[in-house]
């Protein structure tokens, strides 16, 4: 068994473990932390259904960001939508047989790769060009953009310049499901692509990438505006009433 195959296999097990356990921990923590007061940013929906709609608009369209800054919205949305399509396209490496829908979007996935990169470059340039954004950027913010950019670029390089044996990649991944190590092609760009992915999975639960689950737990966005109709009381606050 080639050394690299084993190394990458364990790298992915490790990264997946960190990702899943770290993220589960955060989600459980968010769930268990109460929101003692009703603080939706108003005007807010007065029904559950309305909140689902509001949240959907935030997740799919980045509604608040659109109101806040058109440039950031444009680049940010390009990046995320690109990322989303690329991820869907990548499902072909993980699913056997490949569902028809995933087959269908394959060609779009490549354009999405470009969209993602345009978005990332736009977002990154704001960190240099806009003095306010420069002021708030820390090293980790730059590194994170660098990592995603490199991930995207390496993917496109594999696609257009240095092809790899996709069938072997898929066999390797599917094999990981049942601890069956199949040889991974040794192309350096592929190895880079995969190493970056492992890095992304590892930092996800420990970084600002928590914005993805965080949005769903944001009380200003997920609360129903009905405080006069229903009494809202956190467990710790109700203890004050008994004393």
């Amino acid at each position: 068994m080639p050394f690299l195959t084993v190394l990458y296999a364990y790298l992915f097990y490790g990264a997946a473990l960190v990702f899943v356990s770290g993220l589960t921990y955060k989600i459980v923590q968010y769930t268990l932390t109460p929101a003692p007061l009703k603080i939706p940013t108003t005007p807010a929906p007065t029904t559950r259904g309305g909140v689902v709609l509001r949240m959907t608009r935030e997740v799919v369209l980045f509604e608040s960001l659109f109101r806040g800054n058109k440039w950031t919205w444009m680049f940010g949305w390009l990046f995320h939508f690109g990322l989303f399509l690329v991820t869907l396209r990548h499902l072909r490496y993980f699913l056997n047989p490949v569902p028809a829908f995933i087959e269908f979007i394959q060609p779009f996935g490549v354009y999405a790769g470009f969209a993602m990169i345009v978005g990332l470059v736009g977002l990154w340039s704001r960190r240099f060009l806009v003095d306010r954004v420069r002021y708030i950027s820390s090293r980790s913010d730059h590194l994170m953009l660098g990592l995603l950019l490199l991930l995207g670029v390496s993917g496109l390089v594999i696609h257009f310049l240095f092809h790899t044996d996709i069938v072997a990649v898929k066999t390797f991944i599917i094999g990981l499901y049942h601890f069956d190590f199949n040889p991974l092609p040794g192309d350096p760009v592929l190895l880079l692509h995969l190493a970056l992915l492992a890095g992304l999975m590892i930092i996800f639960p420990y970084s600002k990438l928590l914005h993805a689950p965080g949005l769903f737990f944001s009380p200003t966005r997920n609360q129903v505006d009905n405080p006069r109709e229903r009494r809202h009381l956190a467990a710790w606050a109700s203890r004050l009433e008994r004393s």
Partner: protein
Amino acid sequence: MAKATFKVPVLSQYPEVPAITPGSMAHSTPFQAKPEFQAALGFPGELVENWQERAIEKMGELLTRYRSLRVYLDACVKCGACTDKCHYFLGTQDPKNMPVGRQDLMRKVYRRYFTVAGRLFPKLVGAEDLTKEVLDEWYSYYHQCSQCRRCSVFCPYGIDTAEISMAAREIMDSIGVGQKYCNEIIGKVYTVGNNLGLPGPALVNTLEGLEEDVFDDTGVHVRYPIDQVGAEVLFVTPSADFFAEPHVDGLIGYGKVMHESGLSWTFSTMASEAANFGLFIGSYENMRRVALRIREAAIQLKVKRIIFGECGHAWRVGYGFLNSLAGPWDFLDPRYPVPQHICEFTWDLIQQGRLTLDKSQNDDKVLTFHDSCNVARASRMGDEAGGQFEIPRAIIRATCNHFYDMDEETIRDRTFCCGGGGGLLTDDLMELRVKGAKPRMEALNNVIQEKGVTHMAAICAICKTQFSKVLPFYGMEMDQIISLHQLVSNAIVLTPREDDDDGDEGAQSRAENADEPD
């Protein structure tokens, strides 16, 4: 022009986002609370010995109490959408007054003590120890946030810097570093019953005086009752309404509306304050203690309904939190929301045709309306989302012939704070207050120039006080800010009761074109 020891911003027609000037407001700090005022609120009198440890401990506790704090400290991606949204940044150019800059003051400490990345790689993720310098910075910049929530409107995750400012103030209080203005005022509510420290007998006197004034003015006996057991409605209003201009003209209006409604109603000495500064210092316990006075008054006076007067943050606490803090309100009449806003009440009467309004009484004014932050972004009126924008405007349109809104980008949920909210309405923060008012002053100035606006109406005691103080710095008159219910008061045509003096001519002529209430 009022005299200033600092540079008053120049208003421009098209608002522009300034370049950042680091440290430009680092000198701005409010007076600290004296030990005796801290104790009354359950806080240590001065900076405790092991303050660093205690602060981190408190932060840990708050992180388990408030999901908002936990999620918001984690989620920010530094996208920058909020950076040009805070009136204090726009007025001072200090980057620590950008909402994310303000949050980062706490986030860097959070990362250092509560996250893996910050413990292992502090430099990389911008994590820092809680040093005395950091504490001083907290004290300064967490008292440069009016908790107006404008930033939360534009943040893609709804990150509300107000939540973080409140937590920071609570942490500072818990180690003995409190702000004089807020904490002294809360103390006064506990000992006297209201923010201004007006004792019961003084209130009774003031209200009697008002009844006489209104009678002299209108010839109609409008009553301003207090502590009347068995009244239908308990009226809770900010104590500024009892005597200060322009607030009291609004209070006169509430009384006239109540008079026309025919309902029995009463103020209360126990609940002679709608304001609840417990909100500003982020203290659930203190906020609850203040709110419970309203419950106590409602029980004592055996009322069936509660109505709140014009006050922004009080309405946030009233609308959004009163049920949590001091509920359940099952002993009140279930047909009415608890509490109701006076604007909701007045608008209901107008819609039912039960108020006779003579708009021409306000023809000497051209109006605009200032949406107060806490009403706009933290509460509602009526049944529909956004009623908090439509109902006050509908009342203005029903009572005035000339009304123009300011620029859309500066009203409704995008409204700019007056610059004095969140516990900053104190003279030791004058520079901040004047500079923070700039975006609102700009929008106001534009409608003054373009539409000939003469007055701005508001429904918040803090906004009214703040504007009376800062308008002169910008070359405007202090009396250009008025209470919304002053407009109602001017326009309302009163219905005389039997005990009114028949000989009074003013009453006669008014009574003639008054419709009978149904």
